[in-house]
Structures are given as structure tokens and as C-alpha cells.
């Protein structure tokens, strides 16, 4: 018989031990900050604090009751670009881009004298003012961190810390006072929709699985996160793994499962490590195991690493992969809810969905519904990347506008060289390889599950790539096509061969072999691939192409008809140009040009009108000064 854990006394004990800390130094140990050398910073702190004769702790032990400095680590805080990040509590100071050389000054000034080291504080580029901590950095204040709230505050590798902020109380409630039906009702009432891309109501999915008559059922947590450019789930698993485990527990109780799997991408070694550790610690604490919260119910959680196949994020493929097979999707119905892992009823949920669940049980469906908007309650995490000043991981309520995200949280659009581009916005690609493009006219659109369907885009898992005017949309479409073509499992002919042909057509366009018919063919093929594919990968693969063709038609036509790429990204299609520094204004070229594309005053640099130019090359041949390029 395992002993039932008393969450309250664990929390009280932990809080008691916290009292014996003068300072807490939190060093971000997410992937980004680690890459920037946060481990060296941590070691420097450890050594210098010891050298200074101060007492340093790296782990809180309840019996240790003399004062000291507590050095702890956190998961990604989203502001990776500014990393390594170091937070000093209780002063609420956030230091950015900290290097081992800075450690001495931080300890001498901040720890010993309670003063801030000004030069390490974040400077708000728009006001030029120094920000003390996350409370006054616009990147943070404009967000509503809800699921990510504890990422960056708590130590992901200490279960006591999670318990001390109220963790596992929702799971206990689910196992001891709520019936499976109650839980499903509550989640249904909350309006929670899956964050893995589809936006299917979680409560409905659970209830469908709950009513199945089989005794054996499974819960699977989908931590495959294959979308290139997305790292939301990674951050939750690394930064607050216990919240995912707690969500799995509640889902298991809701449907009556006694076994669960967490399927994590192998590219995320730190997430695998932390989830494994969380499962182990929860087992050792008597939270997971044979008699969960003395309810007589048992629950085992297994962690499995993926092996590098994007399509394994699709639920039937994921199931095949756990069963030890090739990760190929299979037709639905039967739905996993009816016949999933080992042909037993199975619920598959995304990491972020599951991490939201304990919060809903804790606050109640009614309170949860107050966040976000009517049809899409709650918040959504996005990976904000591309040509934007503050790249990183953000979380906002559904219904937030693109403008708010790009300009206020993201700090505006940048040029290729990283400088701010006043009027540089071109597009935002949303939803990764399944998604589409939004343009200037969509800047004030509230983002939610339903608002994007009409314009050929979707929230997807939450990738947001900001693109400036120097970006070629055809090349972006090709990039996503290349991705899906590589990742097609090969089962459906249209997905396997169709994406290959689409890619070839896009190459024709980019390399100057295309005609107007190419565009028609591409469109036709895109629609066929959508229609004839079995799973979401093939069904959505044409979206980036169709959406760029819709919103940036002119750019495609330029590539095809005028054979030039206005952004100069397509090497074979550089636009004809006269170098104003070389041109002396001799007017020879104007006379040679058969279509009158060149104009200019005598002795002044001339210009080519690219929309008239047929690229015959006559002018370049005639120009003695070699001022004309690109024809």
C-alpha cells in the first residue's frame, strides 16, 4: 500500500524552507539560454558566492534552517534572444544577456548591497528606459501568461515546488470528489478546444471516450510538435512538466484509463529528461501509481521518444508508432475514441491542452470562459519568429489582434539586417505547413479558431512567422512544400506524388521556366491533393501555396510573366536594373530598347521599368559602362 501524499503539508514544509532564503537567483536553463551559455553563468554564481563566504543552496532541504542564497533553474521564459536571463528574487530584478564575467558585479552589488546593476537591465528600445523586471518589459506586460505563467518561476525539476503553488490539487479533486462525468461536463462547459491544431472541443472528445464500454483505455499526450518554427510544447514540457502530468491524470480519470503515454520528439532531449524526471518524482511521491490519492484507481505513465517523423504527430500515426510500427496514418472512423492504442478507446491530447486542464479544474469553467472569446475561450501560446524585433514564445488570449502581437509584443518588423523597418510589414505566415498567410488587411483581425477559416489560414499549433518586404512569398511557399513533400508518409498517391509535382512546378516558377499555364496547373493540383489525401498532412499541404497565390498573386505573375523576382531572392530571376553609380546618362540604351522600357534624362542615371522590360538584353549589350544588370 503506498502512502497517500498530503499536498498541504508538503506545500507548508516547502514554504517554510523558502523562508530561510535571503535571495533566490533563478537562471534560465531553457534550450535557448543554455545555448547562450547559461550553465557557465550558473557555475560562476556557485563559485563566486562560495568564495565570498556566503551560504549557497542548490536544493531546498526542509531541515536546512539557516539563511542562504538559493540558486535555482527554470525552463524557457520566452525571451530567449535576450538570454541568458537571470532573475533575482525578492527584488524582482531581471538581468539580460548575462555572462560569467558579470557575476561578480551582480553578487557584489545586488546581493550584498541590494542595488541593481543598471547595465544588465533590459532597455526598452522605444522609450530608451531601463526596465527593472518582467513587470515593466512590454514584451511581457502585453501578454497574458496563463499556461506559461509558472515557466520561468518554478524549478521544473522540483516536484515540491509545483505542489507548493497548488499543484496536483486539481488531480486530487478529480480522483476523490469528482466523477468522470463531472469532469467531462466541467471541461465541456469551459469550452476548451484542443491546442494541437484542430481546435476540437476537448470535453466532447473525453466524453465520447468515457462512454465506451471497454475496461482498458489509454490517454496519450502528443508532444511530437513537428511544426518547424514552433516550440510552445517544448517550453511547457521543459518549464512546467508537472502541469502536463497533472493534465494527463485528470484526462485519465475522466475517461477511466489506467495507462498513459507521453510521446515526445527526440529532438527535444531536455523535454524528455524533464518529463521522465517528473513522472519518476510523482511516482515516488505516491501521486502516480497503484492507489492514486487513495481512490483505489491506478495510473501508470510511460514516456516514449519519437524517431523523427513529422507525420507521427497525426493521431492514428502516433498510435502506430507507439505500437512499434511505421508511423502511417489510418482512415477514420474508427476514431481513437472508439478504437485507438491496441484497439482500445484512447484520448489523444496536445501538451498545451493538457497543461490547461488543471487550471480549469482549479478555477472553474465559468472563470475560464472569461478569458479569450466566446467560441475560443482561454489563451494561446505562439512562437513568434521571423523578421520581428522580439522573437520568442508568447501567450495571449484568443481574440488578440495580429497588430498587437507584431507591433506591441513583437516590437515591430525588422529589415534583414535586424534594424527596425518603419513600413516593412509584408505578411505573417500562421499555422506552419498546414497554414496560410495573413496580410496587412488582416492586422486588426482578432485571432481565434474560427476567424481564420474564411481566409484560407488557421491557428494551427501556433507558429507565427513575420515577414518583411524583402521576403519572396513564392520562395516561402516552396519552403513549406519542400517540408511536406519530405515528410509525406507515402501512403496516398496524391500526397506522395502530388506534393512532389507541386514542388517541381514551384521550382519552375522560381527558376524561370514557368508559364501562365504553370500557375493554373499548380492550382488544380493543389486542390486535388487536398481532396485526395487521407490525413491532415496531405489535406493541408497545399495551403501555403494556395494562400500565397491568393494574397500575393501579383508576385507569382511577376515571376512567371516578367521573369523577375522583385525581392531579388530568386537568383535566376534578378530584376533588370541600372546601377545609378555607373550610369552616365548617355541614352544609348533608350534607343536600343525595343519596348521603350528605359527612361531618363540626358546625363542623369537612367531607370528600367521592369513591368515593361522583356529582358531581351539589348540594352545591356549596348551599354559601354556595364551599368545594366539582370537581363
Amino acid at each position, binding site marked *: 500500500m503506498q502512502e497517500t501524499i498530503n499536498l498541504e503539508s508538503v506545500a507548508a514544509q516547502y514554504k517554510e524552507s523558502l523562508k530561510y532564503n535571503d535571495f533566490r537567483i533563478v537562471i534560465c536553463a531553457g534550450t535557448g539560454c543554455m545555448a547562450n551559455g547559461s550553465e557557465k553563468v550558473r557555475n560562476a554564481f556557485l563559485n563566486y558566492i562560495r568564495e565570498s563566504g556566503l551560504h549557497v543552496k542548490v536544493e531546498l532541504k526542509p531541515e536546512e534552517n539557516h539563511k542562504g542564497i538559493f540558486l535555482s533553474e527554470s525552463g524557457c521564459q520566452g525571451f530567449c534572444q535576450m538570454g541568458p536571463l537571470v532573475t533575482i528574487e525578492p527584488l524582482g530584478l531581471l538581468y539580460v544577456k548575462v555572462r560569467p564575467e558579470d557575476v561578480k558585479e551582480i553578487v557584489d552589488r545586488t546581493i550584498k548591497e541590494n542595488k541593481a546593476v543598471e547595465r544588465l537591465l533590459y532597455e526598452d528600445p522605444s522609450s530608451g528606459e531601463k526596465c527593472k523586471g518582467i513587470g515593466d518589459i512590454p514584451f511581457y506586460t502585453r501578454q497574458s501568461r496563463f499556461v506559461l505563467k509558472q515557466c520561468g518561476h518554478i524549478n521544473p525539476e522540483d516536484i515540491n515546488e509545483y505542489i507548493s503553488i497548488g499543484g496536483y490539487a486539481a488531480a486530487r479533486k478529480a480522483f476523490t470528489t469528482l466523477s468522470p462525468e463531472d469532469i467531462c461536463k466541467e471541461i465541456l462547459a469551459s469550452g476548451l478546444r484542443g491546442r494541437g491544431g484542430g481546435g476540437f472541443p476537448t470535453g466532447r472528445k473525453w466524453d465520447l471516450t468515457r462512454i465506451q464500454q471497454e475496461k482498458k483505455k489509454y490517454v496519450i499526450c502528443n508532444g511530437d510538435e*513537428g511544426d518547424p518554427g514552433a516550440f510552445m510544447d517544448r517550453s511547457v514540457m521543459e518549464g512546467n512538466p508537472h502541469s502536463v502530468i497533472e493534465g494527463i491524470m485528470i484526462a485519465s480519470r475522466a475517461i477511466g484509463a489506467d495507462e498513459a503515454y507521453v510521446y515526445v520528439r527526440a529532438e527535444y532531449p531536455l523535454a524528455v529528461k524533464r518529463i521522465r524526471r517528473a513522472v519518476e518524482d510523482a511516482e515516488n511521491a505516491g501521486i502516480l501509481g497503484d492507489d492514486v490519492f487513495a481512490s483505489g484507481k491506478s495510473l501508470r505513465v510511460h514516456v516514449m521518444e519519437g524517431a523523427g517523423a*513529422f507525420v507521427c504527430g497525426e493521431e492514428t500515426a502516433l498510435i502506430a508508432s507507439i505500437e512499434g510500427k511505421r508511423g502511417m496514418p489510418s482512415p477514420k472512423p474508427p476514431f481513437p475514441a472508439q478504437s485507438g492504442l491496441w484497439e482500445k478507446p484512447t484520448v489523444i491530447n496536445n501538451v498545451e491542452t493538457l497543461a490547461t486542464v488543471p487550471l480549469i479544474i482549479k478555477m472553474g469553467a465559468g472563470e475560464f470562459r472569461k478569458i479569450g472569446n466566446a467560441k475560443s475561450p482561454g489563451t494561446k501560446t505562439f512562437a513568434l519568429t521571423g523578421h520581428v524585433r522580439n522573437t520568442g514564445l508568447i501567450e495571449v488570449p484568443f481574440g488578440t489582434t495580429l497588430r498587437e502581437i507584431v507591433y506591441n509584443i513583437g516590437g515591430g518588423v525588422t529589415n534583414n539586417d535586424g534594424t527596425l523597418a518603419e513600413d516593412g510589414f509584408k505578411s505573417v505566415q500562421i499555422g506552419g505547413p498546414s497554414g496560410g498567410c495573413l496580410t496587412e488587411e488582416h492586422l486588426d483581425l482578432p485571432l481565434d479558431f474560427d476567424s481564420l477559416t474564411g481566409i484560407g489560414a488557421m491557428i494551427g499549433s501556433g507558429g507565427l512567422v513575420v515577414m518583411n518586404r524583402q521576403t519572396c512569398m513564392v520562395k516561402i511557399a516552396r519552403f513549406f512544400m519542400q517540408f511536406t513533400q519530405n515528410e509525406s508518409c507515402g501512403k496516398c498517391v496524391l500526397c506522395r506524388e502530388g506534393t512532389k509535382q507541386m514542388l517541381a512546378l514551384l521550382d519552375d516558377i522560381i527558376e524561370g521556366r514557368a508559364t501562365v499555364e504553370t500557375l493554373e496547373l499548380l492550382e488544380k493540383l493543389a486542390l486535388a491533393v487536398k481532396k485526395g489525401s487521407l490525413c491532415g498532412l496531405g489535406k493541408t499541404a497545399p495551403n501555403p501555396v494556395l494562400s500565397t497565390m491568393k494574397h500575393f498573386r501579383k508576385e507569382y505573375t511577376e515571376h512567371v510573366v516578367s521573369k523577375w523576382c522583385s525581392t531579388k531572392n530568386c537568383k535566376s530571376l534578378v530584376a533588370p536594373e541600372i546601377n545609378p553609380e555607373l550610369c552616365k546618362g548617355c541614352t544609348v540604351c533608350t534607343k536600343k530598347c525595343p519596348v521603350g522600357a528605359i527612361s531618363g534624362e540626358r546625363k542623369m542615371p537612367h531607370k528600367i521599368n521592369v513591368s515593361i522590360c522583356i529582358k531581351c538584353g539589348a540594352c545591356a549589350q549596348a551599354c559601354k559602362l556595364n551599368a545594366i544588370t539582370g537581363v
Partner: protein
Amino acid sequence: MIAEKQILSRTRKFGKVCEILDRYSNDSAKLIPILQAVQEEYRYLPEEVLTFVATSLNLSPARVYGVATFYSHFALEPKGKYVIRVCDGTACHVKGSMSLAEVVMEKLNLDEKRRTTPDMLFTLETVSCLGACGLAPVMVINDEVHGQMTPEKTGTLIDQIIEMEKSYARNN
């Protein structure tokens, strides 16, 4: 007698594999974790090991090959000592990651087909998203993540490794 001896040496040769198979109780459903563990041991999946795993798990070799070739993490050919993985996820791509791969190819005389240097020192791979997009463009050499890379930094990094390997060879 001879047959027995052969079997004995065969199992000895596959000692590590047997250990792994034992760890997973010869459960064919655990094929993927088994192959992962085997690959960790050998750094790739040698052909004879795949056949051995198939026989031990009572699966057809075709099934095992099918799985091994489906997932991009499984390598049927040996990789170099330094595996350079250049991220070509969206964030990195938009920030010019492909020029990093070009530098590597140029420097090490590799191309689309030849991904490993003849001295087995380097293997170049492109991967889609390493989850460190905030630092795009990103590349990983073995387990070390390098963020905000430039073509120049990439070149220097490779030179450093080559230099290190040379001095290592001299000192041994």
C-alpha cells in the same frame, strides 16, 4: 559442434544487443525504443544487427527494415564523429540558415549526396526545427547548440574542430 560455436560467437558479438533486448523483455511493440538503444550503442544500425533484432523479436526482417527506414533518426550507414545538424525550420530558414549549410559543404567538400567526410570526422544533416527558434539561425554539433550563427562563425567553428582533432592526433 561448429554450428553451436558459431551461435555462441554470434551471441557474444551481439552481447550488447542481447542486453538491450532483455531490457525490453523481447517485446516487439518496443521495436522503436530498442532500435534507438541499439543506435546509441553503435551510432548507426548495422545490417546484421537489424537481422538479429528481427529474429529475436520474431518479426520479419522486412518489418524491422520498414521501421528503420521510415524514421529519419535511424541511420543505416555510419556517421562521422561530429554530426553537424543545421536547422532549416521556418525561423532559421527565414534568417538564412541555408548559407550555413553551404559553408559547411564548401569547407568539408560535401554535397547533397555525400554527407559524411571520407575520414569519418564530420556528417552534415539538415533538420527541421530544434526548438530554439528565438536564436535563429541555429546549428547543433553533436549535442551543443549554437545560436545566432553566421557563415563566418560556422567556418571558424569547423576550423577549430579540425585544429583540435589535429593536435589530438599529434599528441597521441
